[in-house]
């Protein structure tokens, strides 16, 4: 139970930090923390071999999302600088 609580608190904390952060790129590390917490919770909620796949899929998916957002943002600021 204590493990779940830690994950939940971290998740909540991370989401609040995401909202509080003004800078778009620096929101992403917090989102990353949130993803870690959720990934852990997925595994904790349903301990089943498919659960690993689910957790990994979720983690990879959200990482891909962050990656895409960050890359696009970077690309756009590059274009804006030129």
């Amino acid at each position, binding site marked *: 139970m204590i493990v779940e609580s830690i994950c939940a608190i971290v*998740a909540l904390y991370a*989401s609040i930090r995401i909202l509080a952060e003004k800078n778009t790129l620096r929101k992403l590390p917090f989102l990353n923390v949130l993803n870690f917490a959720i990934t852990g*919770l997925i595994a904790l*909620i349903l301990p089943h071999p498919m*659960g690993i796949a*689910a957790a990994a899929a*979720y983690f990879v998916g959200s990482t891909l*999302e*962050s990656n895409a957002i960050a890359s*696009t943002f970077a690309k756009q600021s590059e274009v804006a600088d030129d």
Partner: protein
Amino acid sequence: MTDILLMVFAAIAILGAAATAIQKNPYDKLISLGMLFAGVIPFVVAGGYLDVAISLALIVPITTIILLQAVWRCRL
């Protein structure tokens, strides 16, 4: 899934939804959308639909990437 966890996920989802609605910068919106998804997926897992959860976890980022195409095109 215990009540506390449930409340936490619901809070994350609601916060994400509200933030997506309120924010102005499209990138911020997309990040909040990711947050919303983070709040929603545990409900799917808790229901025991792992296959659905896996597919969702792969399809939602694709949606985001598709949206990013528009964000990129609509840049000022």
